[in-house]
């Protein structure tokens, strides 16, 4: 069982038994969903996982103006295209499968746990194609989408500029209208994932730029399709897009990030997507999905690292029990309490996060398929939980992969084992698709206050439903009570901060938004653990529990107990900190002298 990177048992449990992902209207049954998951796992195991280390050790290179990536990437992308993975979420007319969001996220989880770098290329194409299909003209759809979905053309999201990262409103890439209705693009983009590479025949950038004369700031940003090679009379011609640099990154090295220059020779054509000046709102439309995907990437990496640590700690013998004599044989380190604690922590983080993200994707599905009067509520829940589902795995994943290394001792710090790479691969998730700081402000400054706090109320009801669901299980009552109190703590903290907002303004209100997000994360993950424990208790109360299920279910109860015993109490400290006036407001930047 070495080389295991995820547990299908756990994924299917979470998807079917905990979340009960409703495949209604998608044409999927539980059986067909399992076939999809099994097929994804087979591909991940045989095609992606064997390249996990190799792609890290031989990162992309910029050779003669083109980025060269691992030679297997072409066949991976071709298979993902041919077999319908890239088009899966789209309607049948685009060769798609109308795949429900929860199943898509589960598939992404499988691919990313096998090899995060290899999994992002097609995800980016999917996102870019989604933008064109949602907002683009028929001609743009016909010209670009089919070849993208075949895996032959790469899609990208080209937002960031050297002077406009978090603050996209400051971007300066320019678009000059031409007589034929196209635009001439000039500007620089930076950190563009898969911005160029030789595993595809063309790259299609979904690029944000400002049309000449458009308002300053976020209101003047438009979205364009800017291909590397522009289709012209059946041929592909260079479109004046140059790769000026690739970056040597800490992790996630199998996928390139590029600096791109558009229109150096004044010959870069862009095609407007949808209406002018709506670019950022179009991008935001995709934001929930993109952020959940980042959370899922982090969850997947933490999962793979946990499995590596589990395998190692079962086999590595070192030390003896404190009560053993010195002549006793060394025991597997998994028997040591501190090692067990670290393993529990890793499982608690990754399985809790998996559950939360799939819960979000269920809300996403329900926001489309629920009765009309409920749709908006599910959308609000999704909006509220997205920054949490992105950030909890991204931030806790750093600690979790660090704990994986710790389980290996010195070996974990060396390249012979995969966990140092997991640790490096993990780090990006707190940065891209909006840094943790931005997620905190999004949660507290927008999501919690929108519709007069209705989203938080809806969440509170969802948590109450779970507490009620477990009421027949005495063993869960202390935890149900703890969750109820945690919910109160969250509510009180939110009210206190609301008061700060009124009295002292937005700067004070949001100063500690990251801590608030951390507290919020613990409460929601505890909720997901209680939910999992409730489901398990229902199963255990039933007839004929199989032996392997018994071990699995008892394991779930143990990890849940760990979460309530060791992690949830951390909100106590956070709530104390959050109840104080934010110290950072008083501390001047000038104080950072040495």
């Amino acid at each position, binding site marked *: *069982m070495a*080389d*295991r990177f995820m547990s*299908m*048992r756990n994924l299917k449990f979470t998807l079917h038994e905990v979340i009960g992902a409703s495949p209604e209207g998608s*044409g*999927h*049954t539980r*059986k*067909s969903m*399992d*076939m*999809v998951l*099994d*097929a994804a796992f*087979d*591909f991940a*195991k*045989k*095609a992606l996982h064997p390249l996990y280390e190799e792609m890290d050790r031989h990162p992309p290179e910029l050779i003669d103006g083109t980025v060269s990536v691992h030679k297997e990437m072409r066949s991976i992308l071709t*298979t993902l295209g*041919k*077999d*319908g*993975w890239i*088009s*899966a979420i789209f309607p049948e007319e685009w*060769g798609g*499968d109308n*795949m429900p969001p929860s199943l898509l996220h589960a598939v992404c989880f499988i691919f990313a746990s096998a090899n995060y770098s290899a999994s992002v290329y097609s995800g980016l194409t999917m996102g870019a194609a989604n933008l064109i299909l949602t907002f683009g003209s028929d001609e743009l759809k016909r010209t670009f989408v089919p070849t993208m979905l075949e895996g032959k053309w790469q899609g990208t999201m080209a937002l960031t500029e050297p002077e406009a990262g978090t603050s996209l409103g400051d971007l300066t890439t320019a678009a000059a209208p031409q007589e034929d209705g196209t635009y001439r693009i000039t500007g620089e983009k930076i950190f563009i994932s898969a911005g160029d590479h030789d595993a595809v025949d063309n790259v299609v950038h979904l690029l944000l730029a400002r049309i000449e004369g458009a308002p300053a700031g976020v209101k003047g940003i438009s979205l364009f399709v800017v291909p590397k090679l522009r289709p012209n009379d059946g041929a592909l011609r260079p479109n004046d897009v140059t790769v000026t640099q690739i970056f040597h990154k800490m992790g996630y090295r199998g996928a390139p990030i590029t600096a791109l220059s558009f229109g150096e020779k004044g010959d870069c054509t862009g095609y407007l997507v949808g209406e002018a000046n709506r670019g950022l709102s179009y991008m935001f439309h995709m934001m929930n999905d993109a952020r959940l995907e980042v959370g899922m990437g982090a969850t997947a990496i933490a999962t793979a690292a946990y499995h590596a640590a589990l395998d190692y700690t079962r*086999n*590595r013998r070192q030390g003896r029990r404190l009560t053993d004599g010195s002549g006793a044989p060394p025991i597997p380190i998994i028997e040591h309490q501190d090692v067990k604690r670290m393993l529990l922590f890793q499982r608690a983080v990754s399985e809790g996060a998996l559950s939360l993200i799939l819960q979000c994707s269920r809300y996403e599905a329900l926001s489309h398929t629920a009765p009309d009067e409920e749709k908006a509520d599910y959308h609000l829940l999704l909006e509220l939980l997205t920054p949490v589902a992105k950030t909890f795995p991204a931030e806790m994943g750093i600690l979790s992969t660090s704990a994986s290394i710790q389980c290996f001792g010195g*070996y974990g710090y060396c390249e*012979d*084992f995969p966990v140092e790479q997991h640790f490096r691969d993990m780090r990006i998730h707190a940065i891209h698709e909006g840094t943790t700081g931005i997620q905190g402000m999004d949660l507290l400054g927008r999501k919690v206050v929108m519709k007069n706090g209705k989203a938080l109320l809806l969440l509170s009801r969802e948590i109450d439903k779970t507490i009620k669901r477990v009421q027949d299980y005495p063993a869960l009552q202390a935890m149900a009570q703890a969750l109820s109190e945690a919910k109160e703590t969250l509510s009180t903290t939110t009210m206190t901060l609301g008061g700060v907002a009124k009295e002292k303004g937005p700067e004070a209100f949001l100063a500690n938004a990251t801590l608030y997000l951390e507290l919020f994360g613990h409460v929601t993950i505890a909720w997901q653990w209680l939910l999992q424990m409730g489901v398990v208790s229902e199963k255990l109360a039933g007839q004929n529990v*199989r*032996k*392997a*299920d018994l071990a699995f279910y008892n394991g779930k109860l143990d990890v849940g107990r760990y979460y309530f015993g060791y992690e949830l109490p951390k909100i106590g400290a956070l709530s104390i900190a959050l109840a104080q006036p934010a110290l950072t407001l008083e501390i001047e930047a000038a104080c950072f002298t040495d």
Partner: protein
Amino acid sequence: MEILVCVKRVPDSAENEIEMNAEGNDIERDDLVFSVNEWDNYAVEEAIQIVDNVGGTVTVVTVGDDESDEVLRREMAMGAAKGILLTDDAFEGSDCKGVATILKGCVDKGNYDLIFTGAQADEGAGAVGGMLAAMMDYPYASLVNKIEAGDGKLTIGREIEGGNQEMNEIDLPCVLSIQTGINEPRYVGIRGIRQVSGVEIPELGAADLGLDAAAVGEAGAKVKKVDYFVPESGDGAEMLEGSNDQIIEKLIEILKANGGLQ
């Protein structure tokens, strides 16, 4: 060419921790995660490629229980056109000969030019294909790693001890057991799954196949498993631990120290 590929649902060794059952005469099967026997994927891929070249149909068949349709569907999602599930309480506990007898019942009902099995499955006997051929009075070749379709005949390659290769002509109809490495089995994709997920798979039992229930299953089995265990590691065996590189390094050291490597 009408091709029948016999496939089996087996415990997935990557997904399971194998444990002995309480009686100690078999592994605990109730709790296992199953998937299709790895060899069978190669057989199905080969059959699909032959049909792509010369026309015909690929049918996959399995002897199993009501959960075994999942492996048939998987192979159909790869590209096999039809699936048949052979299932009956009377089939339970069949030995290799019993399984071959059941499969013969299925072959008799069709009109197949070519029958494939995997070279072996989880139990490692590799016997079913040969027995089926004998019962059908068809020619048989095992461990086939190359096939060229000809007129009424096939040219086939076989893997021989020591990595040598032999080429044979074999008359049709025949039974071949397929070795891994003969091709690269395609992956199952969403498109394939969509085509097969709702398809009805016919189920045939002993009566449908015209079989005497006493000749198959536990009743007909003349080979019975009486024990099953993991051998004790003997003296002198040393388990090397560490990363692959460390193990390789240690192994080379040991080989050198003992004159196995100069």
